[in-house]
């Protein structure tokens, strides 16, 4: 645990004008460390640079300045070969927003096999990995199904299985719950928690749902390309004014306690609690 799994040092990036960018920085002077085994949620308004950050870590984009280390290796080094890029993608997997646009094959298990096949894993080993991965995301019974018949949450779990089968150390979820209904969202969030707690995979969850971020060990808030807040969910969500300024929200419980504190002069310690604790706190402080 001495070395962070992912480390960003003063990273800046702007989309070139030719790609619809306006030369302003999408990510500005960002420094961030993510340790092995952590579950980090990255919050931010649309265009805050959170998805860009994910793409930088996975080498889909290259920073204009600054350094990025994955597992101690400088991935911004100019001598990175195609094989080095390959190594990075083996370590850091990614699950995207639209479940339809990341499934390649016409059969669920074939799709899960796609990643390990690209890595050149031997056939028997792929079979084993596919079965395990589908087991972890609870989709074993759908192994032979056609993906387009599945619900959004199920498709997203197939996409997750496809990443797990590559045996990554870290998975980045780039707004992977944004297009799902509440049931699908719950399925995917439970899967993510299980990956982190049981499979010990480092998780970076990019989202704008507060109730997902509170499940993380650590919440990083980005605003206009810069790091804005960084702390435990309780620390971050006890500053509602700052979050509102960043175009975000706080859980309704925090909003209520905050209003009681500012308008009625109560001194409820803000933080993220379950409903009963919130009720107790309000009862004891009012």
């Amino acid at each position, binding site marked *: 645990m001495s070395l962070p799994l992912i480390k960003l040092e003063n990273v800046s990036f702007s989309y070139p004008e030719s790609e619809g960018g306006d030369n302003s920085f999408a990510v500005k002077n960002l420094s961030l460390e993510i340790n092995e085994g952590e579950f980090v949620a990255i919050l931010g308004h649309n265009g805050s640079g959170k998805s860009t950050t994910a793409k930088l870590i996975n080498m889909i984009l290259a920073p204009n300045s600054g350094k990025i280390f994955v597992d101690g290796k400088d991935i911004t080094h100019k001598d990175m070969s195609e094989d080095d890029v390959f190594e990075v993608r083996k370590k850091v997997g990614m699950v995207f927003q639209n479940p339809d646009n990341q499934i390649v094959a016409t059969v669920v298990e074939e799709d899960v096999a796609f990643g390990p096949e690209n890595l050149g894993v031997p056939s028997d080993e792929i079979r084993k990995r596919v079965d395990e991965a589908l087991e972890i995301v609870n989709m074993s019974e759908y192994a032979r199904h056609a993906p387009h018949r599945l619900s959004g949450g199920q498709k997203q779990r197939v996409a997750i299985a496809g990443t797990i089968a590559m045996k990554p150390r870290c998975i980045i979820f780039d707004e992977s719950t944004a297009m799902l209904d509440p049931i699908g969202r719950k399925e995917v969030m439970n899967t993510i928690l299980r990956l982190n707690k049981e499979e010990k995979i480092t998780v970076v969850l990019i989202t704008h749902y507060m109730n997902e971020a509170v499940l993380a060990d650590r919440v990083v808030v980005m605003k206009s390309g810069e790091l804005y807040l960084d702390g435990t969910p309780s620390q971050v969500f006890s500053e509602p004014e700052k979050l509102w300024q960043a175009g975000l929200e706080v859980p309704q419980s925090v909003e*209520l306690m905050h209003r009681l504190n500012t308008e009625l002069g109560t001194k409820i310690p803000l933080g993220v609690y379950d409903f009963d604790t919130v009720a107790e706190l309000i009862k004891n402080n009012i």
Partner: protein
Amino acid sequence: MSIIELKNVSFWYGRKTPYEIKALDDISLEIEENSITGLIGHTGSGKSTLVQMLNGILKPDSGTVIVDGQDIWAKPREIGKVRFKVGMVMQYPEYQLFAETVREDIAYGPKNMGLEAEEIEARVSRSIAFCGLTPEILEKSPFDLSGGQKRRVALAGIMAMEPKILVLDEPAAGLDPKGRREILSGIRKYSEESGTSVIIVSHSMEDMAMYCDRVVVMSHARVLANGTCEEVFSNHKMLFDAGLDVPEITSIVLAMRKAGLDIPENIYTVDGAFSALKSLYGKGGQN
């Protein structure tokens, strides 16, 4: 007054095939005029099917759909006219943009209505103002805009048809909290100023509680409840039984009651909870 009335409407997908699914089961429902009605229910509860009944995209297998006092299927050939009365904003409407400029795209609907050029122009201007856009945007290509702006342009395209009823399927899907608030409060303002009746389909109980006057709950092809936010959200058991949630604040209020606080249970917004706590304990509180 009800602007939409459904009488014993039933609908099947793949009727008389082995894959037959009953999507609407003998539904009778009235939607009030000049109100914002929220429509909630799980995926597969029939709410999307119901919405497509309202502008005649789908035809009921039995029952009648009455919009603004007229049976919309009385003259099946004229079903197109219903679509000018019931404006429909689908999920992720930005994916329907097609024209070279924003102006042309917004004018597409009004043009199909056969309006005069001047009237179309006036409507385009009005609708972009409602959506919080400025006139400079009109000459731009819709494909050069940001995601949030595209969403608003698509919305303006429907508003420019000035329908009596505006139906929106998850209008805030995929937006960040600020964008969500802006678009929903914009719709609320539009409804109040133009007198349009609005139906919003959403999964977010908090948004429903905040922006709607009335709520319709669907489950398993049937309407479970149709009433004011207060009526529906205070019926916790019914919502939980349908596998739905109450707004977070309602859960907290319930926890407070359990902890012995004397707070009414029919609260569904943070404002409501705050006022209740204030009036109960604010003045004569323990400290």
